């Protein structure tokens, strides 16, 4: 069955908007503004862009997600007015939220590196804490206090005959 041309156009416009936003310079560029104008969407003001660029939501490239969202709204509006059943189905299946989120995943800065170091930081000194200094001692008979006289002496005290090591029973 041949694909409905209106559906094809709808999908193609959605993808073109996504690609244009993604390929634009950080915060948008001339080409992106022209694209926005073609949908009667006004680009964000320089002050708003400045505010967003300095916000916690960092981007590494591409236009701001809100501008892409506005283009999507225009595309939906345009295709809804056609009243085509196929397009209506396509629109019903189109989730603008997840598409904008998908776009943000593409333009956000690579955060893997800081995560790696952040996760590992808890183990920086964890295994170095509590290390004991050298110890030096002599095993002595608990009964008479005589020191052990042979390295391999693990049985009885050579002086009084008591057991040198007590077994844990």
């Amino acid at each position, binding site marked *: 069955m041949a694909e409905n041309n209106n559906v094809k156009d709808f999908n193609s416009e959605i993808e073109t908007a996504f690609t244009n936003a993604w390929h634009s310079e950080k915060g948008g560029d001339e080409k992106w503004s022209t694209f926005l104008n073609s949908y009667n969407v006004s680009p964000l003001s320089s002050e708003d862009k400045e505010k967003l660029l300095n916000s916690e939501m960092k981007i590494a490239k591409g236009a701001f997600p809100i501008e892409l969202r506005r283009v999507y709204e225009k595309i939906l509006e345009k295709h809804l007015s056609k009243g085509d059943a196929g397009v209506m189905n396509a629109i019903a299946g189109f989730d603008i939220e997840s598409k904008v989120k998908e776009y943000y995943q593409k333009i956000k800065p690579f955060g893997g590196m800081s995560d*790696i170091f952040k996760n*590992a930081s808890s183990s920086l000194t*964890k*295994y170095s804490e509590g*290390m004991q200094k*050298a110890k030096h001692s*002599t095993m002595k008979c608990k009964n008479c206090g005589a*020191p052990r*006289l042979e*390295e391999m002496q693990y049985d009885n005290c050579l002086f009084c005959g008591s057991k040198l090591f007590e077994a844990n029973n």
Partner: protein
Amino acid sequence: MLSSLFKSTDSSSPEFQALVTRWDNFLAKIKERYTEVLQQAEEPLKEVIGSIQYDTVIIHNIKTGLHNQAVTQLSKKVDEGWSKMEGEMSKLGVSYGLITEQHRKADAFKETLANEFQYFEVSLYGRAARQILENVKKHIDEKKLHSCTQCGAELPIKIYSFMSVNLKCESCGSVNTYKPDDRIRALEYYVITHLAEEQAFPAKLKAKYDKSAQKEYFKTYYGFLMENVPDKKEFYEREMNERMNNPIFSLGF
């Protein structure tokens, strides 16, 4: 009809050449990304190495994360890229031989990534090990005298012992037990094994393609351990001989 079914694009066709260029560029980009990941890690790594104390656990954790980013993820991308490329080559009617030739590039590339990362890992542990050694040296009083607990006579205790030792006092005959500082005992695992690996690594790389170099690797690795952990010389010598003579250990290369 038959000729169109069985036609195959030869290596000189411009369409095939364009795909090969695209494929090569793709691999070059992945390599760029690999270098970028390790470059980005350099500054924070310097900071971490400057702050470690007596163990390399944090290095292990960071290394695992970096391996995932630089080798596992990027190798996965190579496989995904190849799957698309293979589809396009098949559509074009490229022969099986030519497709295989391009696929080999992916395998060789992934192997290079893995080898380069192994080199990075060994050097990283080496850097951390040298820092830990310095920290331990600062902490240990090498001139400290040890006297017998019973008669006070001086005992010939080696500060850099890696396990507890029993020493019989030459003066009174009492047995003194010396438990080395935990930091020194930890050197064996956190420092000396890593420095041994660093020294033996060129032989390990060689051994991947030349089985006869495996013995050279084991000799260098265990030779270093025997020299620097003399308390356990016999143990390491036994391990070395076992690895050199038991073919099962050659499988790890």
